[in-house]
């Protein structure tokens, strides 16, 4: 397994190279000029050209790519045109809100999705099953920004129970941290909860049809023991894969929720950077997300092998 893991890490290099080139050149193909955005709509062409010179935007694209790649290999992602600080610093500053949000959203989606899926599978074909799966279908179709705004309307405006905006880090107190993240985590995790519920149901149904489950029931074991001890552990394997990929998807896809709830995370950073044409930040964040995505996939594979002794990597 160690050799497999190392092999996967080495394979990350070409992936990284391709992603960096695609991101760099694609972004520069989009019309728009950070110098013009900085100078403003009322600025003159001379001011814009002067700004371009200061920002080094007049050099050939290939030269700029090679220079950027060389620095990126030394973990120097350049400096943000707008923030005036290293891109690495900008990302690290915003990592905590995004990771916190993603973790809580993932936890919420598992805590809701797994029991719903298992219940649905155990009550297969009955009204409970149909109700739960219909609800999952509807919830998965809801756009997250709508869910977010609705939660704000109910819990912040109507009953004034939770804040509608902003972020408090863990160092400011667990209670305060949770109060700011409950609504965004629910908004973000709800559709993933529905996905996990459907996945868990499908996986449980497959496992519940096996002979050893019938044997366990015939032995007189309580239904809860059959489901939890025998069926669930085997049904979890594909679910873990979905949860792992969900985490990576949520990490990359928290942009909308971060904008709605005003969370100072990576998603909002990349969105604002795209609008401003802050090339170094866009490149750095996308590279970071791609690296994280590959890393999470590797981790899921390793956990998979650890849970299921039948799986061995050569």
């Amino acid at each position: 397994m160690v050799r497999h893991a190392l092999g996967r890490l080495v394979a990350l290099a070409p992936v990284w190279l391709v992603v960096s080139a695609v991101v760099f050149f694609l972004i520069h193909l989009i019309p728009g000029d950070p110098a013009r955005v900085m100078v403003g709509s009322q600025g003159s062409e001379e001011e814009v050209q002067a700004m371009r010179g200061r920002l080094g935007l007049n050099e050939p694209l290939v030269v700029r790519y090679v220079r950027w790649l060389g620095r990126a290999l030394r973990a120097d992602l350049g400096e943000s045109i707008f923030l005036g600080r290293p891109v690495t610093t900008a990302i690290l500053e915003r990592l905590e809100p995004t990771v916190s949000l993603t973790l809580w959203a993932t936890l919420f989606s598992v805590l809701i999705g797994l029991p719903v899926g298992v219940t649905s599978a155990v009550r297969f074909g009955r009204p409970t099953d149909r109700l739960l799966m219909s609800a999952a279908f509807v919830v998965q179709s809801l756009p997250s920004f709508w869910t977010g705004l609705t939660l704000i309307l109910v819990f912040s405006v109507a009953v004034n129970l939770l804040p509608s905006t902003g972020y408090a880090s863990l160092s400011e107190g667990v209670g305060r941290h949770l109060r700011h993240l409950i609504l965004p985590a629910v908004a973000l995790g709800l559709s993933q909860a529905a996905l996990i519920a459907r996945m868990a149901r499908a996986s449980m149904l497959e496992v519940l049809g096996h002979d050893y489950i019938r044997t366990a029931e015939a032995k007189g074991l309580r239904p809860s023991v059959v489901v939890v001890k025998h069926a669930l552990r085997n049904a979890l394997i594909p679910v873990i894969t979905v949860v792992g990929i969900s985490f990576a998807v949520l990490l990359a896809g928290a942009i909308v929720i971060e904008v709605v709830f005003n969370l100072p995370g990576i998603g909002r950073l990349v969105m604002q950077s795209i609008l401003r044409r802050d090339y170094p930040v866009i490149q750095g964040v996308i590279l970071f997300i791609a690296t994280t995505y590959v890393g999470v996939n590797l981790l899921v594979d390793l956990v998979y092998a650890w849970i299921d002794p039948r799986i061995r990597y050569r």
Partner: protein
Amino acid sequence: MRSAIRLLSLLLTTALALTILLPGERGAQATPRRGGTLRVALTGEPPTLDVHQTGAMLVLNLAWHMEWVPDRHIRMARFDRYAALPGEPNGYGGRKVAWVDEVVLVPSSEPSSRVLGVEAGDFDLGDWIPADAYERLAKLPGIKTLAVKPKEWIVAAFNQTSGRPFARRELRQAAQAAIDSEKVMQAAIGRTEFFRLDPGLVFREQVWHSTAGQALYNQKNPVKARDLLKKAGYAGEEIRWLTTKEYEWMYRASLAGTQQLQEVGLKVKLGVVDWATLLRTRKDYDVFVTGMVVYTDPTQIPVLNCSWVGWYCEERHQAMMKELATTVDFKARKAQFEKIQAHFYDQAAALNFGDVFSLRIHRPNVQGFANMPELFVWNVWKQ
């Protein structure tokens, strides 16, 4: 005697208690109080508070110890040694007092989040609120609505460089004749509380305001437009009009404006891009829409400057602008500016659709807010 004293004491105590316990009545006297934190929801943050503008209106001379956490807030604490000017506040000038202990400016790019944040009490003041929300917000007891008057005027700038269709004056005049500004503004803004038809290149509220050239503003005359098109020798060249959805009112104004031009026979193609792309590519288009904000002097108005994209560099206009810039006496300058404005319409240098007002909201306990076009929070206190 003792009973009388007791009764008098009771009456005085009750009167004092009522004064303390009835803030509504005390609020009516609007006595400023020091203290508290003012949280303001804005559209963006430095280096551009609005991602589409440079510059920021901060309470810098009243604040010290500024903490900027990117994407989270700018927090400013009051500078206690600042001495306010004597007298009364007067718009951007006059007496400025920092009543609150702290001002926290929070970037919140999503308009719904700003609105809900003020409703929930997480913000005290919200800027650039969508006008569509006005009717609902005006009915809420926990919200005060303010129309920011004036804010901008919508302009469709022609690209007048040589070889372009709108280098020809008659073609520009044809477009100007075709436009029904009221319909454009209704499409762009919707609510009549938030727009105004006015030919002025500066706003009614300013000393420079003039109605010179009014006869050529909002002509809504398609017959005249078609005649002018024939005179211009228009041969069906495609007119490329650029706009953006990032400012919804620019997009809607463009939809209405392009339709009116098409109805008189101009072949118009609408390009919709994001703001950064618009800024970069507008020089390659024939028309683009933007807003002119409040300027204190007409020489600052971009659409009147030859170096600004649009390139209104007509000789007589240039000469008049030079004279305006070198004249000192206000009356003479005002008279000169009126000629410039009249000439602007004669030349159809650009299309002025009308004035736009924006919407701000705040909590009822926020007092002393001046609601000028550029936001500032000196003299503001929280009841």
